[in-house]
């Protein structure tokens, strides 16, 4: 059976061109980039080449990029490192209710440590209101952190507007760009971004490598102390193979950017129109069109629970994700879905599809053929469905 991997927002397959680029750094060119001998210098050159390449892709200077171990580390470094560095100025940070746990839980941790945190609400499509950011800024605000796009419902936040506002108000602006890097154009200059987190494994690069862009003058205090790597901001021997792979992944993405993004959009819109058009009592979460991640579709399906949809789809050869509590290991459904105003029972019945480089039209068509049947089977089991029928709601 052809497995349709529709969970590319969780992670991606490493592109074969990336594997090829990494290979020599695992076998022959394994030097420690801090050593001045030939192997070390060779690794250093490769590292700096990778840094310059990724920096140019987001409009940054090479020395403004810090490589880390993952997107979560980059977010932690940006937020905790900034709060620590600016502790004389104040202890207030602003973020949103729909941040990825890498940001949200970091904010919660800082709150427990005595920081003040404003969690901005979002509208029903998941957008942060720039005016609310403006209202929330205080003299003691040291950082605003709003994600570039939401990992669940695909909402692309108005980060350029928030960046401009923060610049005007003299507050640093951080954005988690883990979902957008390589899929939505980023220019840290024109968007007035001071700190930006990205990750390799979401863009067909390897796991275990992340990046933090930190504008000159906005470099956070380090979390990891040691040998002074990455300009002293992130000690630890550089993951040269991973970083080279990350850079190669970005280059591959850059070279085919317009075409690949257009293809994602076509598949995404076919999914959205197909699902909401053929299955009654389903709806799209998040916005349509340009303000939605090109590879993301997120559906609410009434009267069915998300994990059962996920596992039945898995059995049919589709790997998707859900915001239901039942698959998360906690009892709470997705915080993002509650923040956009869904009721608990609605949030339990959600499915996320995230397309990737190897997703095909055939897979999407097959999904549109399979999914209505899966929903129908589960609704046939659901007491909520028969009750809704008895009430004449469906």
């Amino acid at each position, binding site marked *: 059976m052809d497995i349709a991997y529709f969970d590319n927002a969780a992670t991606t397959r490493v592109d074969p061109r990336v594997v090829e680029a990494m290979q020599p750094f695992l076998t022959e060119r394994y030097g420690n980039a801090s050593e001045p001998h030939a192997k070390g210098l060779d690794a250093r050159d490769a590292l700096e080449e990778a840094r310059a390449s990724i920096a140019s892709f987001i409009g940054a200077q090479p020395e403004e990029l810090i490589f880390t171990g993952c997107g979560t580390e980059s977010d932690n470094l940006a937020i905790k490192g900034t709060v620590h560095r600016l502790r004389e100025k104040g202890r207030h940070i602003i973020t949103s209710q729909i941040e990825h746990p890498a940001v949200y839980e970091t904010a919660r941790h800082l709150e427990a440590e005595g920081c003040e945190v404003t969690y901005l609400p979002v509208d029903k499509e998941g957008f942060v209101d720039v005016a609310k950011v403006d209202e929330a800024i205080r003299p003691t605000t040291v950082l605003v952190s709003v994600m570039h796009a939401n990992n669940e419902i695909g909402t692309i936040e108005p980060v350029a507007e928030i960046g401009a506002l923060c610049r005007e108000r003299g507050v640093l602006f951080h954005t988690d760009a883990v979902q957008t890097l390589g899929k939505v154009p980023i220019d840290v200059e024109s968007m007035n971004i001071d700190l930006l987190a990205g990750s390799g494994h979401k863009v067909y690069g390897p796991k275990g490598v992340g990046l933090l862009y930190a504008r000159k003058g906005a470099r956070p205090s380090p979390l990891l102390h040691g040998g002074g790597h990455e300009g002293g901001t992130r000690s630890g021997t550089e993951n040269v193979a991973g970083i080279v792979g990350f850079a190669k992944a970005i280059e591959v993405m850059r070279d085919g950017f317009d075409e690949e993004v257009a293809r994602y959009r076509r598949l995404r819109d076919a999914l959205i129109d197909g699902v909401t058009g053929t299955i009654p009592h389903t709806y799209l979460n998040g916005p349509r069109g340009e303000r939605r991640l090109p590879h993301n579709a997120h559906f609410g399906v009434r009267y069915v*629970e998300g994990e059962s949809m996920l596992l039945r789809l898995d059995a049919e050869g589709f790997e998707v994700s859900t915001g239901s509590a039942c698959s998360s290991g906690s009892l709470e459904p997705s915080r993002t879905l509650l923040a956009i105003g869904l009721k608990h029972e609605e949030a339990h019945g959600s499915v996320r599809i995230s397309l990737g480089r190897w997703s095909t039209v055939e897979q999407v068509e097959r999904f549109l053929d399979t999914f209505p049947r899966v929903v129908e089977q589960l609704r046939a089991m659901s007491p909520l469905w028969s009750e809704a029928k008895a009430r004449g709601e469906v």
Partner: protein
Amino acid sequence: MYTEKVKQHFMNPHNMGEMADADGVGIVGNPVCGDVMKIFIRVRDGVITDITFQTFGCAAAIATSSMITDLAKGKTLDEALKISRNDVADALDGLPRIKMHCSNLAADGLQAAIEDFRRRERGESTGEGTQTTPCDSCAAHLAGECDTQHPGDVHGDGHGGGPGHGA
């Protein structure tokens, strides 16, 4: 994460569907918590001669519903009342720890159905089924929503403090 038995019962559940003219109906769970089970029984001479279910919920909720119908069919009401949550989980070769807490409601559903049957015998039931909310522990997580949504809660302690709760 799930055993083969759970997967089998989830993919091909036994005795699924609404039962017209059931002698007892038990309803447990709450859509807010992500699980609702409805158990229908037919009783002849104190024996459960037929049993079906309807479930909104995760794979564990559906599999445990299917399993309880297998376990209870042909049993006397007193025997059926002795089927515990653990019996259901054991018959499925185990459930993930978190599911023991939130989705293993089938035994409660059967008990509610039997209770409903007995209330009908005593002429106390409206015939709409007996609803319990084994959600006292969920309530803690959901800021009391479970309680307010089910004023007809007849088993205040229904959740039984399953393993993993409070961890």
